[in-house]
């Protein structure tokens, strides 16, 4: 116990572990989200500081003291009305010009499937199963009766479309600069598929499959986090989100294919 406390306080005094602000963003759509978050926080800070100055001024200026009396005459100020109208207009602008377009783009403006990497991600307690359709671009049939320790998504290897399918656990490899379409599902409970560095988040809900898409612009090794409480292992449901160059990605696919044929 003592070592753990000592280490924690050592970090505090060294100033380690005090990160703040948004994580880096490697997605093409993320900057719109970040600028909305940024704009909102400037607006919030402005309002809060304005109110704060007013409040502190009141508390000092109108404190109870000998010779000071409250002004009880009825008042009707117009400034708050203008402030309120200003806030309404600002919020309406945020809705119409920032939030609606981003959401509409993400929900309806899907990239062409033929030119994208399409993967199925099936969450379970406490892992991410990533199912690639392989070279033929077609997902093989799956059947929950086939699920076992070596076949986490229940892929039917008898199906011709399934021959070249690749299933990886917790390793989500994508090529940089290519749109990725994820078909998100879950086997047991609700999980939250979260790529903090790509500004992607969506609940994975059993019994439903949700399509979502994103595109990366930088390579690197990142993580998949679980956002939704999914049981005792929720905290350690880490996946690895590796953005590779197209060449590295192709090599990885080749290796996986080789492993498939050797396994037969």
């Amino acid at each position: 116990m003592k070592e753990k406390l000592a280490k924690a306080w050592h970090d505090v005094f060294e100033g380690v572990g005090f990160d703040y602000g948004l994580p880096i963003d490697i997605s093409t759509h993320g900057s719109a989200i970040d600028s909305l978050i940024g704009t909102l926080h400037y607006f919030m800070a402005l309002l809060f500081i304005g109110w704060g100055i007013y409040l502190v001024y009141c508390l000092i200026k109108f404190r109870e003291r000998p010779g000071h009396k409250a002004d009880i005459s009825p008042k009707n100020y117009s400034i708050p009305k203008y402030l309120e109208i200003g806030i309404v207009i600002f919020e309406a602008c945020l809705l119409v010009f920032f939030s609606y377009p981003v959401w509409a783009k993400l929900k309806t403006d899907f990239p062409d499937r033929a030119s994208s990497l399409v993967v199925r991600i099936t969450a379970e307690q406490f892992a991410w199963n990533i199912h690639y359709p392989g070279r033929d671009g077609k997902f093989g049939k799956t059947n929950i009766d086939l699920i076992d320790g070596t076949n986490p998504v229940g892929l039917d290897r008898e199906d011709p479309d399934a021959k070249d399918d690749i299933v990886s656990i917790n390793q989500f490899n994508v090529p940089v600069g290519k749109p990725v379409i994820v078909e998100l599902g879950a086997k047991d409970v609700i999980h939250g598929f979260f790529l903090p560095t790509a500004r992607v988040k969506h609940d994975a809900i059993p019994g439903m499959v949700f399509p979502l898409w994103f595109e990366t612009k930088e390579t690197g090794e990142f993580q998949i986090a679980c956002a939704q409480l999914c049981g005792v292992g929720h905290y350690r449901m880490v996946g690895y989100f590796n953005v590779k160059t197209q060449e590295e990605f192709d090599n990885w696919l080749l290796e996986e294919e080789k492993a498939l044929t050797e396994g037969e």
Partner: protein
Amino acid sequence: MAHHEMPFWKKYIFSTDHKVIGLQYGITATFFLLFGFFLMILMRWQLAYPGAEIPLIGKALTETGAMTPELYNALGAMHGTIMIFLGVVPMGVGAFGNYLVPLQVGACDMAFPKLNMMSYWVYFVGGVIMMASFLMPGGAAASGWTSYPPLSVISNNAQTVWLISMVFLITSSLLGSVNTIVTAIQLKAKGQNFMRWPIHVWAQVTTAFLLLLAFPPLEAAAVLQLADRVFGSSFFLPSGLVVSGEKWAAAGGGNPLLWQHLFWFLAHPEVYVLILPAVGVVCEIVTANARKPLYGYKTMVYSILFLGFMSFIVWAHHMFMTGMGVTLSSFFQATTMIISIPSVIILTTILLTLWGASIRFSVPMLFATAFLPMFAIGGLTGLPLGLTASDIHLHDTYYVIGHFHYVVAPGTLFALMGGVYYWYPKFSGRKMNETLGKIHFWTSFVAINFVFMPMFFMGSKGVSRRMYDQTVYTHGAATQSWNVVMSTAAFVLLFAQIPFIYNMFTAWKTGKKVENDNPWDATTLEWAASSPPPHENFPTPVEVYRDPYSYSPTTGKVLPQFAPQEG
């Protein structure tokens, strides 16, 4: 009159007097608030020092003496449940509503005194059942206070106990809310009309309507989930569930999202159930201590009503990440932005009341003043969560935790603590100690901001909520030291409550006696009764002569509602 010969158990235990029941609610809720806080202290230890043995009581909790993920999840679910359903709501609605609404409208008691007693005892039984769930094999319910299926349906048996307890708690709230509404509307004293109600009464009545209309869907949902768990039905279970590699033995065909809709249809209005009584309390404290009328009484009333109405049509903003399309999300984003308008008006109205005031910095006023900026932080940080685009990144992170804790802890709870200091003379005829009160206020105010402010930094980095040990993630490790700061501040905050609890109990017998029945020189009707008020409150019927916050235009002196004329 018969009540003079009432035996002890009838006068103080199974009482039908709204004041006794109010105090029963207050004491029970105080216990639960402290208990819920204590659960969080255990979790905060784990978050600051992951895996380190818990001092003193660790060995009693787990074999190794260190926190386990199972226990952590159970504590998290119970912290949320206890704080909301057994702590803050019974305090705001049960204690303050019960004690003050009849007095403020000039009634002798609640409209249905026996129903009132039943409401408290049903709550009490619900609380006992909830506490008993800690003794279940495998520990207490561990699916979060939101209890999302399928996790809640496939989890340990304590979840069944949780659901049964919730049915009791909801029933209690429904009984209480009917009573409040009927009392406030039907038992008004002569001359007391709607537009002469103190804001606190408006807040409590609106809250009662929210409880009455929003709780039944959750009660129904809790029964359905109970059926899923106990009778093997599948209201919330889809077909084809595979749990730990095994097919789950249930028919399927249900939908987990159905629960979320039913749950949030209650749980969003519930947020306003937590806030509105606090807003009412703050209005009473601020007007009495600013020594001037409330600015824009009517605006305030209409804002509260509008807020109550809007709170029913924003619930799905908790569900933006569950596959919501463009149309539905546009509607809920728009309503969410609209609901911020009455909130801003309420805050602005209280702030404008301070302009030209003569502010008396009594302890209740310190808490009421602190409520304003804290509630503002809580409200403003709701904006990025209410817009889908920014919610993508912030949803289910510590940012959310920071947001609603700013609303409920330094917001609602500060207001309610201020309310305890303010109405203590009404409850007991004595004042609480000022010095202890100031120590309590300043230490709590500083500590609580160190607890909740870093949550925004962690959340914007992307740290998910409800995690036993965030250092598993790179972004979690990069923000881990905030946890040490937050936990230390939480321990300080716990100690800061000692003067308050001590003060609350000792002042009952040894506090300074008030010189008259209206020690704060306030204007509203509860101060017309003696302090403490006798059984049935007003020996002779009171009459109301004017608006709730009146001052003489000629002398500037206070003009209570119940004073026939100046002077």
